[in-house]
Every structure is written in structure tokens, then in C-alpha cells.
């Protein structure tokens, strides 16, 4: 008679938010893999109903302390689409600069303190720092640059308050941004060095057949706009997003799971998807470093996502520097709003992947409906699918080691569970 075996991680560590993993085996057969998100749902979409649309950027920023800009950017673009507003090139460029700051701080944190320890068997970034003090100190400085850019542009390092529907509440003075240039010049070199360091990690081999989904823009590496494209040939305007993707309730998670609507299949969003679909739009230095460290696309190894993140940090520094060096204050910083009953949607690229918002507003400027699809919700089913394929290679380990190996794979996605519910536990049942 086959014995059941359960491997469980009650609280996944080094991820944002609260969740766990439950794996149930009968003999060598995997019966169940559940990424269980038990952080309570936060009902942001319902909070927004009845609120003035001008309050939306500041409310949705509170969904996450790491990626507030992603929520703000997606919200303002969706609401501007509803109101028929096209922002000026200056506003658009400043929004890209803000997003560069968020990518830098979020990626630098994940790469150095949350993910890198996994490649050396360390249980924390603090332990890794004892082995690589200079590299971790460099990573912390990169993160600080990202936060300082958010502060200079957004008014605060966390949950910026300068983002408005129609633009910014104020455009920064030239010197406020120019003073960041020396740090960003240092940071570009440091980001390149960090990429070289990360590429030298002992990276496990794993190759999956991913349906990678990211925005693709004809002229730029995607941040605030583009078509929704996939490695399997999908190419559609953001307005068709809900015709192709939908969220489902699952009993074991308080976060919704996204699937391809007609295929009922999972898909992969995040830096690896972005780099795969937009490699030629990366900045010249990022492409040069990619060649140097032999990072080529297509890349379907989730454990190499850490390199993709570093390449995006190099890109963000290079683009941010270019904007910082040419920036001039502009007027008006914010376009006037004319309210009307309408609906608008938008997708942008959060550090962790594509994020989609849709809003309905009335002629008084009040929100009547809101839908928010964060990246981690979209990756949850993909993470479970990855684990099903990965588990046979780690099940010979004792439960605690098998659980750790599963956590390593999950952390490749930099999941933000707080976002997905608008923290992590692994349980494996062996039989």
C-alpha cells in the first residue's frame, strides 16, 4: 500500500506577504500542489467605488510598499484613457523615470537580499552578507538610489504622493533631479558589476515551455504602454486583455488565479518574460552585458530570471541617467480633467510583471467600478505548474530540504502576495 507523504512550508520566507505551499504525494505520484495564499483579501477594488477618481493613485499605491508606482501608473493611464486624455511627452518621460526608480529599488532588493541567498544555501541576506559584504553593500546602495529617485520625483521614497491623473502635482526643479546624476553614474557601473556577479552564481538547469506574456512597444522597452504579447504568438491591444485572460477563484487561495481564457492554461509574467519578448529594446549597455555574461534569449530557465532582473536594473540606470541629464521643468505638470461617464483600461509593467487595471467612472468623476489584476495573481498557477515539474527532481531529499528547494523555485518569481490579495508556507504530503 502506498504511503502518503506531505511536504509543507507553513510560511514561505523572503517573499512579500503571507502564503504557504502544500504538496501531497502518494508514492511517487504528485496528487496535489497548492500555492496557498492565506493573507486576507484586502478589497481594494471595492474601496475605490464611490471615491473621486483623483484619489485613486494614492489609494492603490497602498496595495504595495515595494511597487506602489506600478499601481499608480496603471491607474492613471486607465483613468486617462477613460477621460480621453493624452499626456504630454514630458509627463510621459517623467513617468518612465519614476518607473525606473521603482524597478531599481525593487529588483535590487530582490536580487541581493531575497533571491541571491538561495544560490549559496544561505537562509537569509544577512548570512549572505557575511560571505559577500561588498556585493551586498553595493546592492543596498542600488536600492537606495531607486528610493531616492522615488523621493525626488514622487515626494516620498515609499508610496509616492506626486502622481496625479493627468500628470504630476508638481514637476520637480531641475536641481532636484540633477543632484542624483553622480549617484546614477556610479550606479550604472555598479549594476553592471552586480550583473556579472549574479551571472557567476551556480544556477540550476531547468527548462520549461513557458507561455511568456509581456507588453511589447515598437520603440521602447515596455513600462507604461504597449500591446499585450506572448511567446506563443499573442499580440493584442490592452483593451482586449479581458477577452484573452481571466481570473478564477480557487478554494486554497485568497488570491485569484489568472488563466488564458480559452486555453485554460497558465502563463508567465515578469522580468524573464519582458527580456525574452523585448531583448532588442534593452539599452545598449544592458545588451552588451547580456552578451558578456552569455545571457541569450529565448531563456526558459526560471533560475536565470535573477540575471534578467539585473539586466533590467542596468537598463533602468541607463535610461534614468539619460532623462536626468536632459530634464527641464515643464508646464503644465498636470492636464485638466473633464469628467464624463466612461470606462478605461491600461496595462503597465510592474517589477514583477504585467499589471492590468480597468475603471468605470461617472460624470461627477466618481469611480463606479474597478478591476485590478496584479502580476503575482497571474503567476500563481504558473508557479504551481513549475513545482509539479520540478518536484520529481527534489523528492529524494528529506522533507525539509525538498521544501527548501521548492521555495527557491517560488522565489524566482519574486512573488508579492500582499499585492495578489490585494506572506508564504510549503506543505508536502507524501504517500
Amino acid at each position: 500500500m502506498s504511503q502518503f507523504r506531505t511536504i509543507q512550508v507553513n510560511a514561505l520566507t523572503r517573499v512579500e506577504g503571507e502564503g504557504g505551499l502544500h504538496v501531497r504525494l502518494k508514492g511517487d505520484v504528485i496528487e496535489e500542489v497548492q500555492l496557498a495564499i492565506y493573507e486576507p483579501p484586502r478589497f481594494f477594488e471595492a474601496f475605490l467605488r464611490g471615491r473621486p477618481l483623483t484619489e485613486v493613485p494614492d489609494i492603490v499605491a497602498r496595495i504595495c510598499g515595494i511597487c506602489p508606482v506600478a499601481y499608480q501608473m496603471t491607474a492613471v493611464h486607465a483613468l486617462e484613457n477613460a477621460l480621453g486624455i493624452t499626456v504630454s511627452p514630458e509627463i510621459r518621460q517623467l513617468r518612465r523615470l519614476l518607473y525606473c526608480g521603482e524597478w531599481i529599488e525593487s529588483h535590487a532588493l530582490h536580487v541581493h537580499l531575497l533571491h541571491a541567498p538561495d544560490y549559496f544555501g544561505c537562509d537569509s541576506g544577512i548570512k549572505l552578507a557575511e560571505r559577500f559584504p561588498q556585493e551586498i553593500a553595493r546592492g543596498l546602495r542600488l536600492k537606495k538610489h531607486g528610493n531616492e529617485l522615488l523621493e525626488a520625483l514622487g515626494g516620498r521614497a515609499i508610496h509616492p504622493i506626486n502622481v496625479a491623473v493627468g500628470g504630476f502635482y508638481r514637476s520637480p526643479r531641475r536641481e532636484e533631479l540633477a543632484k542624483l546624476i553622480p549617484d546614477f553614474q556610479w550606479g550604472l557601473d555598479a549594476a553592471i558589476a552586480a550583473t556579472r556577479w549574479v551571472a557567476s552564481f551556480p544556477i540550476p538547469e531547468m527548462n520549461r515551455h513557458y507561455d511568456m506574456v509581456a507588453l511589447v512597444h515598437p520603440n521602447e522597452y515596455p513600462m507604461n504602454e504597449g500591446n499585450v504579447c506572448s511567446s506563443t504568438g499573442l499580440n493584442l491591444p490592452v483593451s482586449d486583455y479581458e477577452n484573452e485572460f481571466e481570473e478564477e477563484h480557487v478554494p486554497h487561495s485568497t488570491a485569484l488565479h489568472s488563466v488564458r481564457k480559452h486555453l485554460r492554461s497558465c502563463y508567465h509574467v515578469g522580468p524573464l518574460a519582458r527580456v525574452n519578448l523585448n531583448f532588442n529594446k534593452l539599452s545598449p549597455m544592458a545588451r552588451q552585458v547580456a552578451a558578456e555574461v552569455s545571457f541569450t534569449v529565448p531563456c526558459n530557465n526560471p533560475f536565470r530570471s535573477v540575471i534578467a532582473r539585473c539586466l533590467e536594473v542596468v537598463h533602468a540606470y541607463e535610461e534614468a541617467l539619460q532623462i536626468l541629464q536632459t530634464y527641464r521643468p515643464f508646464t503644465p505638470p498636470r492636464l485638466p480633467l473633464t469628467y464624463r461617464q466612461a470606462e478605461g483600461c491600461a496595462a503597465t509593467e510592474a517589477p514583477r510583471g504585467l499589471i492590468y487595471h480597468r475603471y468605470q467612472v461617472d460624470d461627477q468623476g466618481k469611480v463606479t467600478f474597478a478591476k485590478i489584476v496584479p502580476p503575482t495573481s497571474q503567476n500563481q498557477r504558473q508557479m504551481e505548474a513549475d513545482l509539479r515539474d520540478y518536484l520529481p527532481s527534489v523528492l529524494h531529499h528529506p522533507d525539509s530540504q525538498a521544501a527548501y528547494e521548492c521555495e527557491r523555485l517560488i522565489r524566482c518569481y519574486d512573488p508579492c502576495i500582499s499585492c495578489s490579495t490585494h506572506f508564504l508556507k510549503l506543505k508536502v504530503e507524501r504517500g
Partner: protein
Amino acid sequence: MADHKPSRLLVGLGSHHGDDQVGWRLVEELGNLTEVPIRQAAVPADLLHWLTGIDELYVCDACQGSGQPGKLHRWEYQSSQQALDDILPGVETLRSVNTHQLGLAATLSLARGLHILPRQIVVWGIEGKRFEAGLPISAELAELLPGIIRQLANELDHA
């Protein structure tokens, strides 16, 4: 040979929320009363960017749940006398911990790994009452602040 004058830093941790402002308020006042350089931080991890070359670190932060408002907790680390781990359980009780950021205890552990841990650290925890967004410092704590300031200034002057 001239004596080495220790490099000192006083950091206030806090936020704009109610009694969580007390760390910032204390270092503002102490900056006027002592010669110790001050900084205000919103998250403990900010310390990591300031500790290189610092011999003595003083930290003021609000805490909650272990006494009456204004109660002063004190943890001291001296590299010649004890391990950092001896004071971390106490420091971990401070409220400056959330899911997205390193707390003060983790920050000091990381500073040790980065070889920038000051040889002496004093952490003062000041018990608060209310921490809601937008509120000023509570009347109970505000009333006790002058005495706390005198006590900390005295220690800084005689350290």
C-alpha cells in the same frame, strides 16, 4: 599621540503617525542640546548607508505594548563586552518592523555582516500610546518628553 575622538551618530527612527514621531522629535531636540550629529530615518535600513566610520551609534525609536506611555527602554551593545545577539531580542520588540522592510535588529545584524557595525550601540525605545496616521504626539507622551530629553542629553554629554 592625540586621542582618537570617536565618531558618533544619533538616529531617530519614526514616521508621521502619532507617537511614532517621537524618535524624530527627540533627535531634533537633542541635536540642539548636544554636539552629536543627527539623522532622521523612516526605515531602519537607512542606517546601513550611514554607519561606515561610525564608532558610537545612538538610536531613538518608539515602541509599543510594554509599559505606560513615556516609559524608556534601553539596550546597550559594546563590542568589548558582549555579542550583538545579546541585545537583539530586546531590540526586536521595537515597532519598526513590517513585511516590506528590515527591522532594526535585522539591520544591525546586516551591518555586522557588512563589517560596519559600530563598536558601541545604544538603542532607546520610548513607549508610545497611539500611532494612527495624521495624529500628533499624544498629550501623555508630550508631557513626559522634556524629562526624557534631559535624560538622553545627559547620557550623550557624558558618554
